[in-house]
Structure formats: structure tokens, C-alpha cells
């Protein structure tokens, strides 16, 4: 299983789920319709949802404690609606990380120094290949990073999420 796609860098620690999807959009009964509001209230210099690099990216590279705060899975649904498949960060909040795996998306943790290397290469690094079999991230600028993944998380990602897994096995 390989994902070779464009990356987008979000250089801020502790981006909480309120910043990923504001609470005012939590009033629906379905998981659709959240796409246009992803990062709507993220007040960050240089960031714009209409930026072409952001729109084309499917791999998000972020800083520590990404997805902290509210348990709202709407944050993951909003990422999904914008075709994001992978978030790479030094650390995630537990509930967000599990929500990603439960939906079959990848939350990959690599060390802060490796993330720093990625951010230092931000101008030149536009593509990554995330290889789930080899547990390896290959960047177009030649950088290669190894990662590990919790066995259960990998199973969920490969089996396309939690509910099917549970219905089949329990």
C-alpha cells in the first residue's frame, strides 16, 4: 500500500480540533458538508484554504500535539472531504489519532528532529511517497524517513476502518 501525493506544511504546534473545524459546524446529523470549513478559523500568517498548494495536497505535515482538544471526529471528516489521507507529526492527541485510524486514514508519528528536517526542506519538498509495507516515507528531495505503526492501527487502515472490523469480529 503506497500513497504518493503532494504535501502541505502547517508550522504550528497544538492545532486543536476547534481550529480544524469550528464548533458552529457541528450541528449536522451526517458527516458530509464539512469540507469547505476545514481550518476556517485557523488564524495563521500565510495560510489560506484557497491556496493551490493546500488544495492539491493530500498529505499534511504538522507539528506536535496535532488534533488536541475536542473529540469531534468532524475534524477527520473535514480532512477526508479535502482528500487528505495522511497526517505526519511528532505527536498527536490520542482521540484524534484513533479517529484517523478508525476512518482508515494514517496518523504517522516521526521524531521532532525528523519533522524539523522536513520543515527545513519545505520549499523543495513537494511530494512524498508513504509506503505502508516498508513503513517508509520517501520524499522527492531524497529524504527518507522510517516510521512504526501500532499493529491494531495498521489493521484498521488496511481493513478500511473500525466499524466493519467490529461487525465482522465481535
Amino acid at each position: 500500500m503506497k500513497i504518493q501525493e503532494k504535501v502541505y506544511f502547517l508550522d504550528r504546534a497544538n492545532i486543536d480540533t476547534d481550529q480544524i473545524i469550528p464548533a458552529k459546524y457541528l450541528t449536522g446529523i451526517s458527516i458530509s458538508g464539512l469540507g469547505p470549513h476545514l481550518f476556517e478559523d485557523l488564524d495563521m500568517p500565510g495560510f489560506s484554504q484557497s491556496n493551490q498548494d493546500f488544495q492539491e495536497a493530500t498529505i499534511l505535515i504538522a507539528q506536535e500535539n496535532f488534533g488536541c482538544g475536542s473529540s469531534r471526529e468532524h475534524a477527520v471528516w473535514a480532512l477526508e472531504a479535502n482528500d487528505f489521507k495522511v497526517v505526519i507529526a511528532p505527536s498527536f492527541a490520542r482521540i484524534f489519532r484513533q479517529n484517523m485510524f478508525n476512518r482508515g486514514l494514517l496518523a504517522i508519528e516521526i521524531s521532532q528532529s525528523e519533522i524539523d528536517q522536513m520543515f527545513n526542506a519545505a520549499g523543495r519538498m513537494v511530494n512524498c511517497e508513504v509506503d505502508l509495507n516498508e513503513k517508509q516515507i520517501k520524499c522527492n528531495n531524497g529524504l527518507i524517513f522510517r516510521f512504526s505503526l501500532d499493529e491494531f492501527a495498521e489493521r484498521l487502515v488496511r481493513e478500511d476502518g473500525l466499524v466493519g472490523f467490529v461487525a465482522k469480529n465481535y
Partner: protein
Amino acid sequence: MGKTLVQKIFDGHIIDRPSAGTVALEVDLVMCHEITTPPAILDIQNKWGDEVFNPNKIVALIDHVNPAKDSATALQGKVMRDWVRRHDIKFYDVGSNGVCHALLPEQGHVLPGMTIVCGDSHTCTHGAFGAFAAGIGTTDLEAAILKGVVFFREPKTMRIQLDGKLSENVYAKDVILYLISQLGVKGATDYVIEFCGPIIENMDMESRMTICNMSVEAGATSGLCYPDGQTLEYCRQRNLEIESLIWDWQPDSDAQYDKDLLFNLSLLEPQVTFGSNPSQVKSVTEMAGTKVDQVYLGSCTNGRITDLRIAAKILEGKHIAKSVRMIVSPATTQVQIQAIQEGLAEIFIQAGACFTNPTCGACLGMSSGVLAKGEVCASTTNRNFPGRMGKGGTVHLMSPDTAAATALRGFITDPREVI
């Protein structure tokens, strides 16, 4: 080697180990509110024939927007009502409800040793009873509703012993804000914290709930206190006989923790956040004088009767500053009734505060006190993230005592100055 409390609770609930490091736990209580549950209900209806694993182990309620503020939130409520009627699930509707983490303990649904999940990050509140309680997303919630099973990594364990004696005007909220400042916002990620020591032992259940409630703000999966006489008394008042549970759900004396921390808090002062995450904390003396536009008293952290009593004591016979507005939102209908009966509601209203119905409301910028851009709120809630209570607004977290003192002057005020 002895076991910690959370290890014992896990041992009693493990039904499977699907992969190395992950356990499948049997769920004793699934709590369902109107924001995160409807998508799960609809997906189960579409794919799995509208099943629920056991209606007696599910409790549902309306709390985030109470009552509905528009047709979208009304539809969330309708999906909940239709679902609980189809399955005969216990439901707390508008008029008899409250913020879930205050309501369920109050109504006697929470006991030591239970496993409790909800699509809400502050579910860790219920750990105050010596239960394992954790927030989950909607997909996990769907699996829990469908099969009564939930998955967790084997937890890392952390013991936090709190020694000393709290000074006057220093409360549970000050304790947990200080601890988060010491741990950092991800210092307890993937840990389950067990809080103990004389300071916890001397706290009532509502204060313990405040402590456990915010353990997630340090990243923790859950935060627990060991059941004791306080727990027994609180449950007895709800006709729950739990004497044997008190003894069953204790850690072994030789339990080993992955991290073992000790703090002496005798010199702790009232605490207030600055900045935009809950680990950015200073003592009130350093923050005093910061002007605020709104004071908010409420939420699953500090909207219980003891919180209202503390604030009312400061406000009795006085009026809030002209430059400020104050909103008091009792956490549950029962707290609302009690506040009226004890005369607290009148104290708040006479002091110039708006006394509202129970709701999560403004804590997450949903309703009933949302901030405008550039406004500052002194709040007894749990999160000061950017825009949390309204886009462009700033939040300073503090205790009900400090919040009430702040309301009197219109700027952050040391409660020790206004006694």
C-alpha cells in the same frame, strides 16, 4: 507485581486482544449526546439494521445546545428522540437534562470500576469515582453502541500524589491548572493518571470531578481518583450501595507506575491561564488587572452546585462592574433547582448576572454567551484555545472564586482581595 487501579479495571473488562498492545474492553456505560451521536445512529441504521448492543447500558441526552437554537440543532435532537424511543433507552431531554459529565454522576449512573465512554473528550470526568472513563470519536462510539466493545492501547500509568493543604481561596480548578502547567499539554498523552494524596482525600466528589475533567488537557486518556468515604456518601445519597465496590477498586499497595509524581501544594495560589493553551498558567497575582468583557460561570468543569455556592458567596449583596457582563449557567436542571432553592439564583441576578438554563453553550462557542472578535472572557470552563468561545475572542481559565471576584471589578482579580 501489584496492579494500579486502571490495570485492575482493564483486567476486569478485557474481552479480546486484537493486536499486540491493544485491548478490546467490554463497555458498562455508553453516554450519548446530540452532537457526536446522530451520525453514528444513522450509519448503524443504514448498514447494521438499527441495532444497539444493550439499551440498558446506554444513556442519552441533549446538552450541547439546550434547547435547540435553530432547525439544524432541532434535527439533532429529533434523531436522538426517535432513536431512544425505538430502543427504550434512558433519555434526559430538554427540561430535565444537563451537561453530560455533571448529569450522569448526579443521576447515579456512575460507579467505581465501570468502563464508560462517550463521544466527548471530557468523559474523563467520571474517573473521579474510580471508573475508567474516556472520550472517543463517533466511529468508536458507533462500535460501542453496536457491540458494547471499545478499543484502547494498554495504558501507561502515572500516579500524581498531592501533598499538603490548600490555602483558602485555592480550589480544585487551581490545582488542575497548575498540574497541566507542570505536565504540559501532551505530557500525559497515552497515560491514565491516578490522582491521590491528602489533597485529593480532603476533596468532595465535585472537586474531584473538576480535577479529573481537565486531565485530558494534559493529553491523558483518563484521570482517576480512588473510591473512598466521599464516594460512598455521594453514591448513598443516590440510593446506590457501593460499599463492596470501594474495597474492590483500589490499587495494590505495591503497584508500579510508569511515572510517579509528587507535588506539595500548600503554597499554591489561585491560578489563571494566559495565551491559548491550558498549560499556559500563572498565579492570579501576575494576571491581576487584565480587563475582561465577560465572565462565564458554568460547564462540565465548574458548573456544579458547589461552584455556584463559591461564586455566590463573593457576589452576595454586591453588583458586578458596569464594564462587564456575567453569565451563570448551572450544569444541570438539578443544580438549577438547587440554586433557586438556596437563593443563589437571586444573588446572581441581583448582582447583574444572566442566569441561564443548563447547556454546554458558550464553553465551545456554540450559544448562550459566544464572544465577539477582540473580546476577553474570564471563564470557569476548560479550554482557552484560539477562538474556542468565539472567533477572535480570548479566554482566561480560572476557578469560580476568581471568576466571581473578577466580575466585581471588571478585570482579573485576586479573590483574596474581595473577601
